[in-house]
């Protein structure tokens, strides 16, 4: 595969999934803290 194409799609994939996982982790942490406050 063309190195530039590989670099482009790898960056796209990494950035989007890093943002997705960051959101999911933050959401899980905030939901835990809400449960603690309620409990």
């Amino acid at each position, binding site marked *: 595969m063309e190195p530039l194409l590989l670099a*482009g799609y790898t960056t796209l994939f990494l950035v989007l999934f890093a943002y997705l996982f960051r959101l999911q982790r933050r959401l899980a942490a905030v939901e835990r803290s809400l449960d603690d406050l309620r409990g």
Partner: protein
Amino acid sequence: MRFGRLLAKVVGVLHPLLYSRAVAWGALVSGVASFGLVFGVASDTMYGIEHGANLIAYWHISMAWVGAVALGATFVGSALYLHYRGQFWNHLAHSAGEVGFLFVSLTLLTGSMWGRVVWNSWWEWTDVRLVTFLVVWFVYAGYLFVYASTAGSGGERYAAVYGVVGFVTVPLSYLSTRLWVPTFHETTIANPGVSANIDPLTLVVSVVAATLLYLYLLGLRIRLHRVEEKVLTHKTAGGG
């Protein structure tokens, strides 16, 4: 008043859709289909240049279109927040702006890579589309900065005004190749003089995949805002 009721109905339908599994699965399936088409069907010859890296164009164009839609959602959310003052609109505006900024950044990055192939240059200051799109990037970086500086202190309306006014740069960038003489970016839609050789099916599937991914990320970001707000309410009520 009638518009307000219609709006409530639209939100009632769209809101659960954002959190549905159909959006997540749709993004995954269409994403896989898009990559299958990009690497299996689409031609790597564009604008008469044969190069493997031309295939980055499918997600570059998809990111650019979805980025514009996202910033449009920031505009709508900001305008409705200024009118109705509902926190949902404020959350929608900021979430769409944050995800849109990410998409716009990726558009610039992939565009620079594609430019290296078709124009033999990473960046061209003389091209109106490139420069106006960079202006969009700076405007929305500014929006996120203003939101972060004012959120929670009762100054959300400043970010909302910014979200409304800043949107003017988005259609300006998209129309720039028709308004001014383009150096490199030629108008391809409804322009029979230019043949980019972009496979329509691959492009449509890629745009659908990027849109569903955007909706999934938007739903997650709005949910994060709502849970954070509940935590804050509990802390305030508990005096902590």
